[in-house]
């Protein structure tokens, strides 16, 4: 079976970055970070058609990429990743080795180097925003919301709802200002906006 090199490379990059950031990583985390990375590429003006794999709504999860799921499986089979203890109901994924040979084989591909900044920004943004805000923010992404309202599955990042996403990105770009060197800050702002959080949320809870 042909494995998607972008997906394999992305899973490795996410696992390595999250390991450095001391973050618990599960399959759901990887799917979410991969999706956020794709959104950041879109924010940066890249067409989603060039991302290399698609996301959709499924019974297993949303957003979900079959290529990412397959990449995780193949990395477990090859011993690069292992399945650890259960954390909050989900199995933790662990990086067993740094994927040296795999990284050497696929990391040199030019088309894969360009996406590193999106993956890094998504991992770092997810840490700053918090895992809860990451999940909630992505759940409210316009094309995800549209897909979730349907009984059956559907592809994400397409259709009329995409226009609202573009509007949100334009608003963030205006609010945050500056160039696109820093993708972490807009990712956190967007996730926080979509999750409906503000720093005063805690003040609203009684002690």
């Amino acid at each position, binding site marked *: 079976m042909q494995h998607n090199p972008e997906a394999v490379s992305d899973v490795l990059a996410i696992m390595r970055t999250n390991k450095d950031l001391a973050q618990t990583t599960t399959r759901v985390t990887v799917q979410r970070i991969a999706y956020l990375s794709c959104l950041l590429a879109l924010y940066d003006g890249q067409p989603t058609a060039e991302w290399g794999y698609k996301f959709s709504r499924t019974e297993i999860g949303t957003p979900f990429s079959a290529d990412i799921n397959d990449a995780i499986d193949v990395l477990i089979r090859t011993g690069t990743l292992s399945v650890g203890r259960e954390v909050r109901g989900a199995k933790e994924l662990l990086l067993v080795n740094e994927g040296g040979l795999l990284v050497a084989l696929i990391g040199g591909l030019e088309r894969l180097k360009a996406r590193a900044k999106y993956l890094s920004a998504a991992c770092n943004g997810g840490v700053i925003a918090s895992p809860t805000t990451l999940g909630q923010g992505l759940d409210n992404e316009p094309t995800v919301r549209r897909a979730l309202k349907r009984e059956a599955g559907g592809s994400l990042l397409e259709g009329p709802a995409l226009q*609202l996403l573009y509007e949100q990105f334009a608003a963030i770009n205006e609010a945050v200002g500056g160039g696109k060197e820093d993708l972490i800050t807009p990712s956190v702002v967007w996730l926080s906006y979509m999750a409906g959080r503000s720093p005063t949320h805690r003040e609203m809870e009684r002690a």
Partner: protein
Amino acid sequence: MGCDIEKMKQITHDLAVVAVSKHFGADGSRALADLISIVTKLYRNIDPERLKAPLPVFVVPIGGGDVSAIVGTAKFTMATDLITHELDEGCILGVTQGGKVSVFDAAGVDRELLSKQAIVYVFDLDKEYFLVDGMPYSVANPTDQASPYATPTYSSLTNALQRFAKRKVAHTSCYILEGCWADDKRLFLKPGPESTMRRSLEQYLRDVFPDAEVRPEQNVDESHPVDIKITWGDTLKRALIEIKWLGKSRTSESKITVDHTAQRARDGAKQLADYMDADLKAAPGVRSVGYLVVFDARRRKLSEATTSLAPVEAFYYRDREIDYSPDYAATRTDFHPPIRMFAEPLSP
């Protein structure tokens, strides 16, 4: 629905990362993530609720200045995961290049001045914030822990639901649930409180299980009684939660609209059992477990005109469990024992 620009601006104004980016540039944002990861590691060994002194931790972004004139000389440097009792006395931690922490004496350190050249995180009893360029930015804490960077102490859904019952429902310690009540003494519920209860529980479960997908069910009718679905992506394991409430609802004109007794809980159990049968047929490869959650707001001797109740009547049902017959939890492996959450009235 378009983009809410004013909300976007407010969020931008309040977030520490925006201030960090403006003050330190792109390297600042990365440094902030590093700082949070160090705090996360610290809290694996240290419970922030048990800290005896404020805990400031700082990181100097790449290109930042020398802060030694502000913090002095480090007492020692060590790996983050080895730090435990060293924090018993007042100290300030600095993140080093190698991801370790240097420990400095906190006495006399001007944190605001430090924040001109470093990003400073502070946990101080019930306050948690970042200092950036002299300004504080609160840390949003949607969790039940003292800090969102601390490791939760429970892992199972059962445990989480029991904690929700105790910490949120019992004394209505949730601003969302506050909106359920029709009166100040919490004798009556407002008509149709189900969606509010569901929203409160859904939010709580999202915070407790950030690695799972927690979603309200879109199709809510008699044939689809499930209110919340939780899916863990790595396994074909799923929790289906059905919420029922007991008690009396009353309008603002003091008309009782509904009176739900224990029978409603029993009906809910049957509904859920029937749904689990249908779900098994529809998706035989998925292991679903049904949870019946009962918000119990029953009071004894409550009539339309009641404005207050003696404690013996108000709290009559607090410790009275509901008998279920049939007892699905005893005969099925996909049915968890119902969890009753008694919502206390305010003591007169």
